[in-house]
């Protein structure tokens, strides 16, 4: 059932340092750590000429590197990998628009904002808003609500 679910998304650097982890399935901390460690290792071992998809355990992993950051999504096997690449790309565009030419440091120092943006774009692993403008507007408004 629910053969289209995104199970998790990870962002990590080329040295394997985790920058963001969003889990859409319930797992223990220990399990999350193990999965993260193994997957990071596997993805970092990939050569540039290889395609963006790999089979890993019973999941499909879609990943793309943007500058020094790897964006990695694990989806269940029935999913359309090509559209997942578009999802990743959309998230990067949102970050870019929000931070203005986003780089890894932005995400390190403002990790909570990266989460907020992600949570306005995806909910439960699915896109909740397909308009870039609307996602950014919502974040903007919510930011304004923050007490000083």
């Amino acid at each position, binding site marked *: 059932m629910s053969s289209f679910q995104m199970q998790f998304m990870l962002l990590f650097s080329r040295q394997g340092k985790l920058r963001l982890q969003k889990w859409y399935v319930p797992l223990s901390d220990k399990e999350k750590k193990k999965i993260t460690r193994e997957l990071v290792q596997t993805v970092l071992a990939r050569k540039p000429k*290889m395609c963006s*998809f790999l089979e890993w355990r019973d999941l499909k992993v879609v990943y793309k590197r943007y500058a020094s950051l790897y964006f990695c999504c694990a989806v269940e096997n029935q999913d359309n990998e090509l559209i997942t690449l578009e999802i990743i790309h959309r998230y990067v565009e949102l970050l870019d628009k929000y931070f203005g030419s986003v780089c890894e440091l932005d995400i390190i120092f403002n990790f909570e904002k990266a989460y907020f943006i992600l949570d306005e774009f995806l*909910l439960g692993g699915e896109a909740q*808003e397909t308009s870039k403008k609307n996602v950014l507007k919502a974040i903007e*408004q919510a930011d304004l609500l923050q*007490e000083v």
Partner: protein
Amino acid sequence: MPAPIRLRELIRTIRTARTQAEEREMIQKECAAIRSSFREEDNTYRCRNVAKLLYMHMLGYPAHFGQLECLKLIASQKFTDKRIGYLGAMLLLDERQDVHLLMTNCIKNDLNHSTQYVQGLALCTLGCMGSSEMCRDLAGEVEKLLKTSNSYLRKKAALCAVHVIRKVPELMEMFLPATKNLLSEKNHGVLHTSVVLLTEMCERSPDMLAHFRKNEKLVPQLVRILKNLIMSGYSPEHDVSGISDPFLQVRILRLLRILGKSDDDSSEAMNDILAQVATNTETSKNVGNAILYETVLTIMDIKSESGLRVLAINILGRFLLNNDKNIRYVALTSLLKTVQTDHNAVQRHRSTIVDCLKDLDVSIKRRAMELSFALVNGNNVRGMMKELLYFLDSCDPEFKADCASGVFLAAEKYAPSKRWHIDTVMRVLTTAGSYVRDDSVPNLIQLITNSVEMHAYTVQRLYKALLDDISQQPLVQVASWCIGEYGDLLLSGQCEEEEPIQVTEDEVLDVLEGLLASNLSTPVTRGYSLTAIMKLSTRFSSVNRIKKVVSVYGSSIDVELQQRAVEYNALFKKYDHMRPALLERMPIMEKTATNGPSEIVQTNGEAEPSAVEAKHPPPVAQPANQANDLLDLLGGNDVVPVIQTSMPTKPASAGGELLDLLGDLSLSGPAPAPSVPSSQPPFLLDGLSSQPLFNDIAPAGIPPMIAYNKNGLKIDFTFERANPNPNVAVITIHATNSTESEMTEFVFQAAVPKTFQLQLLSPSSNVVPALNQGSVTQVIRVLNPQKQQLRMRIKLTYTHKGSPVQDLSEVNNFPPQSWQ
């Protein structure tokens, strides 16, 4: 107490740490500060502290002491607090912890908050990590929000509902009314999430699916929306590289797939739009291809007309030629799924698929390999195998085993000739020999045995391969076996298929002995080699050399090897007259169940016992006729015909004594004994096989008797009781010949009255030497449950001085002890 340091400050500080130890120290210090701050119930800085904790958690440090603080933040009135609180909850809490249930009330309140962004936080958190209990408690709130006119909330509520349904499927029904006019929304966010919700419902429940098809007429609605997306002009808000809202398009196509599957009407209703999308979508960028891909998946899954299916496969074919390796990958994956159903259409792209074998990407190569094997058929087998063998040569080790298996399977199914088959098998063994699966060895041996006309060619090629390389065990094992079997053909230079090799006995024995001695050979391989050498003792004349080798290995440390050597030694010394029969050429093996009596099986340390077992089937037909003769003679109903094996194969265990001494040792030969897949009867180390053949051990004192004595042929019977079963008498016949000429083609048959059961085991040979120089022995087992007086009618046939002789006789002088 000074204000706790700010988040960014902490991050900066931690990043200055030069070692892991330094970092740990900083973290510990800060955690201690945070802990005391929590203890003081400081409201002002709680948010800042939790945020710092979340950062440290991401670095891998424990942060569970912050869980309750997250709950406090969620309960706070401040938006900033709530934002961090909910984030913390999603990162630090999960449904495994009871603590998470404390969130329920807060979430409930926040779902009804006056600020939509607070409501949004609550919906997001519930939709990401809500446990079943929470979902049950809050489903009603979600359902309410699904009906709101606020599109910001409606879209979130829809995805939250998806999560609720995944966690608590029974709650699906309650969301049904709210879905009524979801698709009439203009807002793309709501449309997208609504399609996701409808998809989830249709996937989970066939009833829902039927409902949405018939009552809601979902398909026309979706078709209309999709059409608008394609036909409408440029919409800046939703445009991605010239395509309007690709995310929504893909989700609609996916829902259409589910609605159209196995439903003719729905499939027909979507036919046109699918064709339209398939032909009009821009393919220069990934986004267009993503939509095309989804379209292809839908076309293949629903009941589309053949024109549409061909269109879909052709799209995949074009994908295969795309520069983008991601596109090639998805094409191969899809083709693999459709190759069974649309075989001919996929065949058209065969050459492109084969080219993908040379791709640099591992996943693409694997798929191309799988697809290539799926496309092999009788017409293209030669060409395809050439490509696949070439692939086998150069591919990564992770592929070799699967590729080798695939080649064997395809060769078995479609081999155009026996010679081609053997050549192909040889090629695999020489290029990927260490990667073939264990069962390949027995399968290949069987293939070779059954290709009778190719024996000379095969053994020659295998011999030459051994000269090159002895490291690949499966190759070496098959080669050893063949040389053992067909070594005589190797010497005789009989090969028709290619230039016959010139080789001497010594050279061949050198090679085999080399295998025995080599470090590269596994114990299993050594077993094969030793047996092969032994077999050559009846095919070559260098018997002394072979005897020497065998006796040397009689003291081998390897127990398996030692046992073989000792038994073969025994064969030379005590049972030399049996050796030719024992080591005879193997007959054609059948893969199906043999129909010999299972109890006849005995082990004698032969390398491939199950293969030898398979020797039993052929002769059954012949004795049946003869048994019928006996039936006639003894008055029909009285007699139970005897099942006899006329082939002088294994005798009762030549190593019978050894069986006793070595107790439990498995005598069924080495691990890769040809597991000829069939209902092979298990080896029965029954009472009989542990009985020595000859009456060396004094039985329960039953005296022997002379059963027949005529024309120089004398047959003695000796007796013993079968150990486990006192109703079974074991009689050994000893046939001797006092005339000057030997008796050849000697066959002994027996029949007993109906209350008895009789079993005749294989004779030691069918030549009774002249002038009492030896004897033919054979074992008879008689089951006599009713303890009646034993009577027997025997029939003897043999050739003496060129003429056939036949005689019948009754044996009535059984000593009472033999049947009481």
